C-alpha cells in the first residue's frame, strides 16, 4: 500500500511537472500571458508595453546569444533613432563599429545600447535608464591620447563621477553643452531684454475673433442629428470653425451629403479622427509617456497559428489554433495609458482616467490655456507641479493673460514640457512631454535660451532644489563649464600679438 | 624692397643669356619635384624666387597630385598659363585665384609674410623653370625699364 502510494505520488508529480513545463513552453513559444515570466520591472516608459515582449525580443527561438544581443539592440534604435539623430549623438553606434575601436569594446562596448542600458534590472538602474556606475566615462577617457585630464588644464583635478552628473556633459546629447556653444553664449545677462518665446508668441497672438457668434452661427447650417447650444457656441469660437471643420467633419468624416451624415453619425469619434488632421501632434503624442500605448512600433499580440508555424508545425490543425486563441491567447494590450498605472505622483482624484486627446483638449471648445496648465495640474501632484502657481513663470503668464506683457512672455507647463517650434510659418507643438527631459539640458535650446542666458539655464537645471520649487529664486550652485571654455579663448598676454 | 627687386632684376638681365637651361618635360619631371632637382638660375632675382618657391610653393607646385596645382617643369600645365602673361600670373599669386575647375590658389600661397616682390620672384622662377624662360627674360627687362 505504502509502495503504491509512493508510486502514485511520483506519477502525479511527473504528470504535473510535464503539464507545467508544457504550459510554460506554450506561453513562451506560442501564445499566452507572459507577465509571470518578466525577469524584473522594465525601465521608464517601457513598462507601458511590457506585456508585448517581442517589441524588443525579436530573435527567432533558440538563437545564439550574440544574435539575440544584436537583435535586441536593433529594436532600441527602431524607436529611439529620431531622437538620437536630433540629439546630434556624441557617441553614435556607427562610430564604434570601426575595428580600430576594438580595444574600447573591451571597456564599454559602444556598439550596443544594452552595454549601458540593461533592461529588467530596476535595482541597478540609475538616472536616464543607465545601468553603469556614474563614473563610466573613466573607461575610455582616462588613458593616453584620450586622457581628458591631460587634454584640458581645467580638468586636471577632476574625478570621473562628475562628468555626466554636474550639468557639463551627456553621453548622447551635448547640443547645448559643446565647448564652442558655451563660448558663443558666454557673458550674457541672466534674463534677456525682451524675454519672449517666439513660436509661443506666434501661436498665442489672438487671431481675428468672430465678432458676433450669434450672427455667425445663423449663417452656418445647423440641421444636425445632435444640436446643443453650448457646444455650438464653443465650436463657433474655435479654430475648427475658422478652418471650416463642421460637426460632420469629426462625427461623420466620410459623409458627402446630409443623409449620409445622418446614417454615419458617430456620437464619440475616436482619436483616429483627430489624428487624421493633427498628424504632428498625434505622432509626437505617441512618443511621450501620455500616448506611448499608441506607438506604432509596439508589437501586436502574437498570432497562435504563426507561432506554431515558427515552431515547425507547418499546418497546425484549425481546432487546435482556435482552442489556443479562445483560452490561451496573448492578452490584448490596453489602448490608452491610464493614470492608475502611472509611476509618478498623481492626485488621488485623478486616478482611473485614460489618457486621450480629449483628456486635455475639449473637442468643441478650444481652450489652450487649460491644456497648457490646468490639464497638467489636474493630475500631477509632485512638488515641481504644485509649486508652479507660486513661480515667476506663472506670474508672467498671468500678466500676459491680463494684457500687461506681450504674447509669448508667460511660461506655462507646456512652454517647457511641450515646446513649440516654427516651421514654414506654422507653429508645431511637441506633444511628447518627455522630449526635453532626460536629460533636462535638452530643454536649454528648445525653451530656456529664449529668455535666459546659457549660464543661468545650465546652473538652474543642475540645481535639484530649484527644479523642485519650480524655479522660484536663483540657482544655488554654479557650473563652471562656461568659465572654463571662455578662459581657453580669451586672449592672454602671450598670444596677444598673433 | 621694390627698389631692391628692380636692382636685382637689372643685375640678372646682363647674365641672362648664360643661364642654365631649365629642366622641362611635357608632363614635368617624374615624381615629386623638390627644389634640389631644379636648376639654380644665375640671376639673383630668380635665385631669391627659388628660395621662396622652396619654402612656400613646393608643397603644392612640386607635383602634389591631390591639390590640383600646376606642377613645376610641366610644359603641358604651364604653356596656357604662361600665355596669359606674367602680369596675370603674378596678380593671381598675390591676390589669390579660384581656377575654372575650382582649384584654389590662396593669396601669397597662404604665406602672408611674403611681399609682392617676393611672390613675383617665386612666380618668375616657376615660369622660368617650366618653359617660360623667354617670357621671364622680357619680364625682367620690363622691371629694369621701370626701375630706370
Amino acid at each position, binding site marked *: 500500500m505504502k509502495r503504491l502510494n509512493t508510486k502514485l505520488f511520483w506519477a502525479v508529480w511527473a504528470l504535473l511537472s510535464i503539464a507545467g513545463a508544457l504550459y510554460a513552453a506554450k506561453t513562451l513559444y506560442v501564445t499566452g500571458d507572459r507577465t509571470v515570466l518578466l525577469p524584473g520591472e522594465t525601465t521608464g516608459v517601457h513598462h507601458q508595453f511590457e506585456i508585448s515582449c517581442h517589441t524588443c525580443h525579436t530573435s527567432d527561438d533558440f538563437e545564439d546569444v550574440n544574435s539575440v544581443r544584436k537583435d535586441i539592440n536593433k529594436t532600441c534604435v527602431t524607436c529611439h533613432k529620431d531622437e538620437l539623430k536630433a540629439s546630434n549623438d556624441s557617441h553614435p553606434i556607427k562610430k564604434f563599429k570601426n575595428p580600430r575601436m576594438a580595444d574600447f569594446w573591451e571597456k564599454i562596448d559602444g556598439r550596443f545600447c544594452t552595454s549601458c542600458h540593461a533592461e529588467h534590472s530596476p535595482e541597478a538602474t540609475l538616472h536616464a535608464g543607465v545601468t553603469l556606475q556614474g563614473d563610466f566615462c573613466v573607461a575610455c577617457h582616462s588613458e593616453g591620447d584620450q586622457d581628458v585630464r591631460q587634454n584640458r588644464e581645467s580638468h586636471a583635478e577632476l574625478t570621473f563621477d562628475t562628468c555626466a552628473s554636474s550639468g557639463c556633459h551627456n553621453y548622447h546629447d551635448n547640443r547645448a553643452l559643446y565647448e*564652442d556653444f558655451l563660448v558663443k553664449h558666454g557673458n550674457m545677462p541672466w534674463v534677456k531684454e525682451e524675454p519672449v518665446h517666439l513660436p509661443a508668441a506666434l501661436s498665442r497672438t489672438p487671431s481675428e475673433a468672430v465678432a458676433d457668434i450669434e450672427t455667425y452661427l445663423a449663417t452656418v447650417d445647423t440641421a444636425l442629428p445632435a444640436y446643443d447650444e453650448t457646444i455650438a457656441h464653443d465650436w463657433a469660437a474655435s479654430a475648427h470653425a475658422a478652418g471650416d471643420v463642421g460637426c460632420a467633419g469629426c462625427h461623420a468624416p466620410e459623409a458627402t451629403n446630409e443623409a449620409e451624415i445622418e446614417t454615419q453619425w458617430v456620437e464619440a469619434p475616436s482619436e483616429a479622427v483627430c489624428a487624421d488632421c493633427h498628424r504632428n501632434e498625434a505622432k509626437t503624442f505617441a512618443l511621450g509617456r501620455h500616448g506611448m500605448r499608441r506607438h506604432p512600433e509596439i508589437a501586436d499580440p502574437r498570432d497562435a497559428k504563426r507561432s506554431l508555424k515558427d515552431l515547425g508545425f507547418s499546418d497546425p490543425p484549425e481546432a487546435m489554433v482556435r482552442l489556443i486563441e479562445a483560452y490561451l491567447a496573448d492578452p490584448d494590450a490596453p489602448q490608452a495609458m491610464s493614470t492608475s498605472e502611472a509611476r509618478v505622483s498623481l492626485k488621488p482624484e485623478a486616478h482611473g482616467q485614460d489618457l486621450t486627446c480629449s483628456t486635455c483638449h475639449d473637442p468643441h471648445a478650444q481652450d489652450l490655456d487649460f491644456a497648457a496648465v490646468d490639464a497638467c495640474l489636474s493630475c500631477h501632484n509632485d512638488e515641481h507641479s504644485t509649486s508652479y502657481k507660486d513661480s515667476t513663470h506663472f506670474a508672467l503668464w498671468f500678466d500676459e493673460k491680463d494684457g500687461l506683457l506681450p504674447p509669448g512672455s508667460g511660461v506655462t507647463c507646456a512652454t517647457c514640457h511641450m515646446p513649440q517650434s516654427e516651421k514654414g510659418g506654422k507653429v508645431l507643438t511637441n506633444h511628447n512631454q518627455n522630449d526635453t527631459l532626460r536629460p533636462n539640458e535638452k530643454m536649454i535650446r528648445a525653451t530656456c535660451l529664449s529668455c535666459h542666458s546659457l549660464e543661468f539655464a545650465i546652473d538652474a537645471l543642475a540645481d535639484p532644489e530649484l527644479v523642485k520649487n519650480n524655479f522660484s529664486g536663483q540657482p544655488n550652485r554654479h557650473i563652471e563649464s562656461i568659465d572654463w571654455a571662455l578662459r581657453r579663448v580669451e586672449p592672454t598676454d602671450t598670444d596677444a600679438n598673433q | 624692397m621694390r627698389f631692391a627687386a628692380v636692382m636685382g632684376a637689372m643685375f640678372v638681365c646682363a647674365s641672362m643669356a648664360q643661364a642654365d637651361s631649365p629642366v622641362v618635360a611635357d608632363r614635368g619631371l617624374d615624381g615629386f619635384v623638390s627644389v634640389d632637382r631644379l636648376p639654380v638660375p644665375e640671376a639673383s632675382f630668380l635665385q631669391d624666387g627659388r628660395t621662396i618657391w622652396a619654402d612656400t610653393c613646393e608643397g603644392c607646385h612640386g607635383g602634389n597630385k591631390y591639390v590640383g596645382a600646376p606642377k613645376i617643369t610641366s610644359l603641358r600645365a604651364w604653356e596656357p598659363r604662361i600665355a596669359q602673361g606674367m602680369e596675370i600670373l603674378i596678380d593671381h599669386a598675390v591676390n589669390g585665384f579660384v581656377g575654372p575647375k575650382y582649384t584654389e590658389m590662396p593669396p601669397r600661397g597662404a604665406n602672408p609674410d611674403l611681399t609682392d616682390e617676393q611672390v613675383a620672384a617665386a612666380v618668375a622662377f616657376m615660369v622660368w623653370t617650366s618653359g617660360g624662360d623667354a617670357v621671364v627674360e622680357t619680364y625682367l627687362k620690363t622691371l629694369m625699364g621701370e626701375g630706370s
Partner: protein
Amino acid sequence: MYDKFKGLKASVLAGALAVGAMQPATAEEGLDFQTVSDLLHLVMSSDRTVYTRMIVNRLAVEEKVITASEHFEDDKALVLPAQMFRFGSEMVAEETDAFSYSLLSLWPINKQNAPSTPLEIEGLEYLAENPGENFYGEEELGGEKYFTAFYPDISVAEACSKCHNEHKDSPRTDFKGGDVMGGVVIRIPMDS
C-alpha cells in the same frame, strides 16, 4: 606584403566600384587587398576633392555666398570637407562590415582621431616621413585579421592648414599647403 585574396568579397567590392577602365575581375581570380583598397581610396578621394573644389571652393572662396564650418547646423554653413568624408565613413559603417575607413592624424584636433593601434602609429608616421607614398600592413583587432592601408591626407586648400594651425585644440600649428596632415586608413577583414 599582403595575401592574395581567395574569397569573393574583394571582387564584389571592386565590382561595386564600377571603375570603367579596370579589367573585369572574375570571382576565381579575385582582386588582391591592395588593389581593392586603392580603388576604394580613389573613389573616396575623388569625391572629396569634387566636394572641396566644386562646393566649398566655389561657394565659400570664389562666390563668397556661404561659409564652411565645423558647426554647420548652428552656423547654417557648409560641412567641412573632412566632415563630409567622415559622415561618408559613418554611413558605410552602418551599411556594411566588409570594409571600414577613417581619417586619422598624428596631430588631431579631436583626440578620437589620434592613432589607436600600433599599426596606425607606424602607418601615419610613414606617411608623414614619405610624402606621396602609401603604406600597407596587416593587423589583428578584436580577434579578426585586417588588411590595413594608409593614404596621405594632404592640405589641399588654404582653409585646411589655416584652421588646423589656428584651432585651439590643434597640437601642430605650422601646416603649409601640400603638407601631409594625416592619413586615410582603410581596413578590410581578411578571413570573412
